């Protein structure tokens, strides 16, 4: 099962609650579980197209490589990813499916890179030791998911969850463009040394 995130933009509190409820009711669809989040950098963003700042919100969402879904009284032109008020579960499911297809077709997701903005706090690192590995990998510069998976040996399905946690905490953001790796003078610790040291320190 893959967790997907949906950010609501300018929706009223009531509509957010309705959306949250609908997402939990529609449950798992084709292996994807959607979750409502607040932080930019989600898989998709549902934008109130009737709001004054709609245009700006859409630009912002696209810049963050979120697939944009609009919600309006009129329901849009029916071509794009548009929903009409009030929200209905069937319409929502169909649009979310199309959103994923669009994301896959646009090459978004696996190919775009993640950038480290900051490390998470001590409490978060204590609770999940793999976050340290992921942040360490990202410390060398923006990385795609497959790069991070290679460097950390964490499976992509688990890595996706970890990246969502980090994104939700504001530590990581999606970024367009090719990943660049920070150059470093060549030095590699002896094979397995850090693994053994971590084990000795109780951090493996």
């Amino acid at each position: 099962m893959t967790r997907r995130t949906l950010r609501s933009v300018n929706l009223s509190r009531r509509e957010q609650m309705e959306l949250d409820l609908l997402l939990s009711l529609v449950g798992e669809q084709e292996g994807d579980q959607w979750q409502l989040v607040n932080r930019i950098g989600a898989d998709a963003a549902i934008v109130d197209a009737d709001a004054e700042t709609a245009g700006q919100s859409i630009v912002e969402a696209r810049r963050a490589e979120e697939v944009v879904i609009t919600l309006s009284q009129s329901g849009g032109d029916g071509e794009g990813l548009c929903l009409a008020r009030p929200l209905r579960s069937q319409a929502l499911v169909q649009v979310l499916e199309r959103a994923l297809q669009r994301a896959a077709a646009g090459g978004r997701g696996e190919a775009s890179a993640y950038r480290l903005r900051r490390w998470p706090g001590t409490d978060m690192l204590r609770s999940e030791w793999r976050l340290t590995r992921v942040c360490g990998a990202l410390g060398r510069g923006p990385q795609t998911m497959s790069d991070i998976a290679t460097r950390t040996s964490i499976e992509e399905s688990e890595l996706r969850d970890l990246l969502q946690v980090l994104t939700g905490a504001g530590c990581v953001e999606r970024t367009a463009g090719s990943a660049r790796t920070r150059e470093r003078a060549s030095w590699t610790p002896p094979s397995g040394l850090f693994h053994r040291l971590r084990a000795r320190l109780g951090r493996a």
Partner: protein
Amino acid sequence: MDASRKFLFTGSPGVGKTTAIRAISDIEPVTTEMAASDELAARKESTTAALDFGEIRLDDGERIRLYGTPGQRRFDFMWELLTEGAMGVVILVDNSRPDPLADLDIYVENFGQLIRDTGAVIGVTRTDRYSTPDVDAFYARLGAHRLMLPILECDIRERDDVTLLMDALMSTIEPESA
């Protein structure tokens, strides 16, 4: 000395470098303390004048050496000597001091080459009582040095916090397979 089996602990005078080493060392650390004078004496009776030395002994008999530098700038010749062969550096900053960000600058600049060649972690202490500057301010300051390093609030008297610093440090050096 095997040059690839050594970590360095540095940072503000009195921040607790010796304490941090003691928290994870398998031997009682060797210290070179001398009676403190000037403003440091109000907080500590003694200060490291040459180096601290501790050791972690791995199960296969391998030893990881932990070196603590003196904190005061007048001992920067020791910083240079101790940097040689280090795998990475833990920089501890005391948030109770008058200008912790300026302190950060000193250690980031003086250990800049080591940081770029290997890796580093920043541990900020005493944040429970001294909450400013906050972690965001430290990240902004690191950004001015064009560096992205883990900045962790910690209590270096707690072994768990020191092991977390070490874990983060290792992650910055080379992202090995888990």
